[in-house]
């Protein structure tokens, strides 16, 4: 049994590595003229190779994988933390917090004289969308933690997350109804986009992954203990409040970074851990790392499709992750029922 599980894990790892490598190549080949290996070859040796492949396609490809990886990791962390397979990275208020940050920056100039001063508007505009989204995501989670009075009780934390999400979303709508110019930008943020990921974004995403992954990994044994129930975990000597706080921190960091760089990409965080667990049941250490890899693979796949389906136009990448992820979940549910 253990041997069979080990084999499945190995198979999953091999599959994810192969898929990632293939998709990385596809990511370099998929451009505004559709995708073909022959044109990639021509582009690579053309005058514009450094620009088109080096500065646009490569960072976009790597960035999409890293964003997906952060979301996959955050999803696996959230599902372990809440012991709930429906938990996703946006649960603790980070999504609506980030959206509020973005909307405030977008609406700043329009709201001068209607509640905010010119100086505030200027400051907001200078912060920029990325920083505002990141700050908003973290503030959303902090607000949730404050409402839940720490991470002691998961139910309270979940409920606080829902309340914060709803309240912040309402504020979002309030701002956009006062400054309708911000609507389009908000819509773009809600759909998510990998189009403008450059090397600077990749550096931020990579650093975030390097920070959050070891953090989550170190706590994976605690997540394993939690699966036995809170009392058992406590009797094993686990200091639940502190462990949860650390997990929430890793979750917030990973989600905040992903969201600030690429917007609210749907479903990757929810589906990636399911994909991994289905293929190879394993302790949380493996699940966390593999979910990150699966998330990266899934988002990169969606990104390549987004670029090539109707090139040179683009399908919003969030639409594709929702379709791919949602389709997979439906298939999973159906399979379970008939199994």
């Amino acid at each position: 049994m253990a041997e069979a599980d080990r084999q499945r894990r190995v198979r999953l790892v091999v599959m994810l590595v192969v898929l990632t490598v293939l998709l990385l190549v596809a990511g370099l080949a998929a451009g505004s003229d559709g995708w073909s290996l022959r044109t990639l070859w021509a582009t690579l040796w053309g005058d514009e190779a450094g620009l088109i492949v080096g500065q646009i396609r490569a960072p976009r490809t790597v960035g999409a994988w890293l964003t997906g990886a952060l979301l996959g990791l955050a999803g696996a962390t959230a599902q372990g933390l809440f012991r709930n397979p429906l938990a996703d990275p946006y649960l603790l208020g980070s999504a609506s917090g980030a959206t509020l940050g973005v909307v405030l920056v977008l609406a700043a100039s329009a709201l001068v004289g209607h509640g905010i001063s010119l100086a505030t508007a200027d400051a907001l505009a200078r912060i920029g969308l990325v920083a505002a989204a990141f700050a908003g995501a973290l503030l959303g989670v902090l607000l949730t933690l404050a409402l839940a009075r720490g991470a002691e009780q998961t139910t309270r934390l979940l409920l606080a997350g829902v309340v914060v999400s709803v309240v912040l979303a309402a504020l979002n709508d309030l701002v956009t109804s006062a400054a309708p110019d911000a609507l389009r930008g908000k819509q773009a943020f809600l759909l998510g986009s990998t189009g403008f990921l450059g090397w600077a974004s990749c550096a931020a995403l990579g650093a975030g992954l390097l920070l959050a992954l070891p953090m989550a990994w170190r706590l994976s044994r605690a997540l394993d203990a939690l699966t036995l129930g809170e009392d058992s975990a406590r009797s094993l000597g686990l200091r639940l409040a502190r462990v949860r706080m650390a997990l929430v921190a890793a979750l917030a960091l990973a989600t905040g970074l992903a969201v600030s760089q690429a917007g609210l990409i749907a479903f990757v965080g929810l589906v990636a851990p399911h994909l991994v667990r289905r293929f190879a049941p394993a302790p949380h250490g493996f699940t966390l790392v593999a979910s990150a890899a699966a998330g990266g693979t899934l988002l990169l796949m969606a990104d390549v499709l987004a670029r090539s389906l109707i090139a040179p136009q683009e399908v919003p990448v969030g639409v594709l992750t929702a379709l791919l992820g949602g389709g997979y979940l439906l298939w999973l549910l159906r399979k379970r029922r008939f199994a």
Partner: protein
Amino acid sequence: MKPHASARPVRGVQRLNAVQPVRAVLLALALCLQAQASAQVSVRDERGATLTFSAPPKRIVSLLPSLTESVCALGGCALLVGTDRFSNSPASVLALPKLGGLDDAQVERIAALTPDVVLAATSARVIDRLESLGIRVLVLEPRNHADVQRSLATLAQLLGRPDEGARLWSAIEQDMREAAMRVPPALRGQRVYFEVDAAPYAAGAGSFIGQTLARLGLGNVVPAELGPFPKLNPEFVVRAQPDIVMAAKANLGDMAKRPGWAALRALQRGRTCGFASEPYEVLVRPGPRMGEAALTLADCLVQIAKVR
């Protein structure tokens, strides 16, 4: 009843005299009807619905900024009793009640204003609700030059000033011709990238903006096949290397920071048009100010030619 019956073909010479008075009555009746018909207006909207009014409407609600502008440009500004919240031109409409947007128009307030007709876009959710309340809705949504011309004609008819539509359109045409003449010859045929949103969405050759650019003798990096406002892969723009980049000022400022976009020669050489929010609004509304928009574009092109 009677006139109808006596209108049957009359046989026999001896009855000729008896017909004369009937004719007179008929003539009077026809004159009467015609007098009424001159007040009556009948217009067809984009759904194909024909709306007939016994007299030109006296109270109008407009739920689309370009229609608000059109009504005012046709001299009907005083008839407007309310607009959507986005209508902001001409300045006089700012004082009117704001009745929400495309998806959240306030049915109760609109009904309370007892408009004779509501002007709305095809996608407005409120249409069915208003019609079920017995309020007449004229659906118009100009998307290109021909649409604008047609909608101006329709609105002119509605206002009971059928000639105004053609007059206004020829004024727009006149402005476009003048703008085209102002474009420096060196810039004719240059390919433009006109960004309408940072996502990036661009104005394609088939959009009304693309049509205006074509009138000015300019090319477009986005072909008409991609639709009026396609969401592009950012790489497409970098590869297309447009000769001139046009966008709202706020978006233009950040463009060079996008991955790879610093390589755009138009950005490097300052061959750009960054529009402040007011002129930009004129540019992105398919309405009576399209001529003004063309002149704005021409002004920018003159500046670009100077930089060179």
